């Protein structure tokens, strides 16, 4: 599989803590089909003064990014250097091509607008008497688009995608940047059971789990940060308050337990889930 049909995940920032983002709408569709919803976080230009509906970029959880690259669905694109170097070395022929593309889009828009204008006139019953066009008006109404996905770094992205050593390095850096390494194993275990997962701080957990696409289905569980359940203590008060919290948000409060292992490959059975419910007696 070459890099071209893989999903490009841009890692924003430097060092360990990086933010995985996806910019291509087709990639976002693909992700949704394999059960990764993510969080849209950019301003929606058609409704720019609200936060309910947002647009590209799609922000992924670190665990999602790790899982997607580990399973070979996606690859990483990193760092500001790739943009600055690409921008500093733009050749005049590339600029020329970009300009031609813009011209091309303008030409299409002109044709479209003239046609629309003609149709409107015809509908209003006016004859073709408006022969005198207003080119200035037409020119000033042409649309310049700011693309979401970069063409500037497409070559660099391809190169990075075909560089397994660097991909490995980025993967490990990203994993080291997590607060709780056990969470990744919890994520994988739940993903295997076809849950859609999303960040869960607002329901008091690490993840919240949906049985299907969150567009259509309510979530059922708030999953707590992974515990090493053989060693880490779980306070009884925590259990009580967690159970209450779960009832409050109408979800199952789930404690995810992983077992510490000595540098071995993860075994799925190492992850256990315990769900806690507020029993409704009395």
């Amino acid at each position: 599989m070459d890099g071209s049909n893989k999903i490009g995940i841009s890692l924003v920032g430097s060092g360990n803590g990086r933010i995985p983002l996806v910019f291509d709408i087709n990639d976002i569709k693909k992700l949704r089909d394999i059960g990764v919803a993510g969080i849209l976080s950019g301003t929606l230009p058609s409704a720019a003064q609200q936060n309910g509906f947002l647009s590209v970029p799609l922000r992924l959880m670190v665990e999602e990014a790790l899982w997607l690259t580990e399973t070979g669905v996606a690859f990483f694109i990193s760092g500001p250097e790739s943009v600055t170097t690409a921008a500093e070395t733009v050749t005049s022929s590339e600029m020329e091509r970009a300009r031609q593309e813009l011209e091309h889009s303008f030409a299409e828009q002109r044709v479209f607008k003239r046609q629309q204008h003609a149709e409107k006139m015809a509908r209003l019953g006016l004859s073709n008497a408006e022969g005198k066009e207003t080119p200035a008006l037409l020119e000033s109404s042409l649309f310049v688009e700011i693309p979401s996905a970069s063409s500037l770094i497409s070559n660099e992205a391809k190169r990075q995608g075909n560089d397994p050593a660097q991909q490995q390095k980025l993967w490990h850096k990203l994993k080291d940047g997590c607060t709780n390494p056990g969470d990744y194993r919890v994520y994988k275990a739940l993903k295997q059971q076809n849950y859609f997962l999303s960040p869960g701080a607002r329901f008091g957990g690490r993840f919240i789990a949906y049985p299907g696409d969150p567009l259509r289905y309510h979530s059922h569980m708030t999953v707590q940060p992974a515990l090493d359940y053989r060693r880490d203590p779980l306070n009884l008060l925590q259990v009580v308050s967690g159970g209450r919290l779960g009832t409050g948000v109408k979800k199952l409060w789930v404690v995810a337990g992983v077992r510490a292992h000595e540098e071995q490959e993860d075994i799925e059975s190492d992850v256990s889930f315990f769900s806690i419910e507020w029993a409704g007696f009395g």
Partner: protein
Amino acid sequence: MASKTIERDEESSITRDLLDSDDEADELSKDWSHIAKLCKSQAVVPKRGDKDYEPDGTNAQELLLYRAKKAMFDSLSDAARGTVVKNQIKAFYVPERHLAFISQPKGNFMHTMGKVDRNGTCWLNFHEFVYLAERGTITPYFKRSDREDHGLDPLLSIQDLYLLFRSSQESDEFAVFAHLKRLGFIVMPSQMSPDDHNNDQIKHMPRAGLTDSLSKLTKALSQIFQVPTYHPLQYHLTRYTTSGQIYAALNKLVPFYTAPKTAKEIDQERYSRTINSRKNDFTFDVWKPQGSFKKKTPGLPDLHILVLNKNTSDYSFPTYSVIRSLFQSVYSKYDGTLERQESAAGSPLSSKTGKQFSKPVPPHLEQQRRLKKGYRSFILAVMDDGLISFVKLTESDFGSENVWFKTTRRASKNKPRSDRSTRHNGGKNPGGEKKTEELNAIR
């Protein structure tokens, strides 16, 4: 005609749905069909029902899901970012300075964003640059360092812009910045050094500092004389005839932190703090939307915001001492005292005070309000992989409040020494500083 009424029906249902934040707002995803309608009027997506419990494998469900997804992706791909040629404003990113400039600045955003230098060039900080590009207000270009003219400056995409963030923290801060900007707030990077926000305050500061240390001295002195409070002899000297006296005496035994309550006290504290250390600063200063805002003289901000990402390995919730030093550096508009001063002055202009006059609040209710509302406050914006929770931290002062007695007006004037007995005020804890947390409904 029939179609028209149907349309109207649908629209009214939309507003009802938007208002009805009961369950929907809690859930992660929204009904994209509304916004799809805003984006393009031709393809009307039928309104779908509420969410289901879980997939049951029926075709009906599949169809609904398909439509929901289609509505979402249609509105995403139809909403192209950009601008028409006439309104195009080109901004050029300068990598060395991590800023962007606009040579011929124009547009409404200049009101609250950007800094114009001597040559009339408007400089945007990186957050403003990305935010404006994302809404299509400006067109972002990369300024090459090796050339004077813009002939070879490439157009930047949104992806390029995000990749140019220097750190993940900066990107998280941008997310909060954009969230607040979309709501209409005026957001600026926090400027903690006092000389930036008010010049004449500094001039008074040294004196304020002096009186501060003086008052500390007298406090210390009085504490020396108070020491006998703990002495067994004290109990022979004093006769306790009412339980109120006992409570008052006990109250003296519990050490507590007194929160500064007036604007003046707060200034003094901040001054002493700026001499000592200024490590933990806020991320943003925020003003509520206002028409009369001036970038040069913004006045005191309404809110302070600190951005934290809870999922990074170096994350730690602010410790007690960090929170205290953060409280000390708060200088936002302080409505707590203002309100009380206003009511004391009794200006008939404000409707609020008018109301208070017509219906005076009983002191114990006023006290409860004080305890609940607290004094200085700031907001933590906690980033959880793209979802932001706003948490307000407020400094509240239980120690100075007399929560043990139901005081009458006379009694409160005569200090707690006097009788007027002993109704418990539901389990409130005296002493110590308490912080009330509440989730702020900014979204």
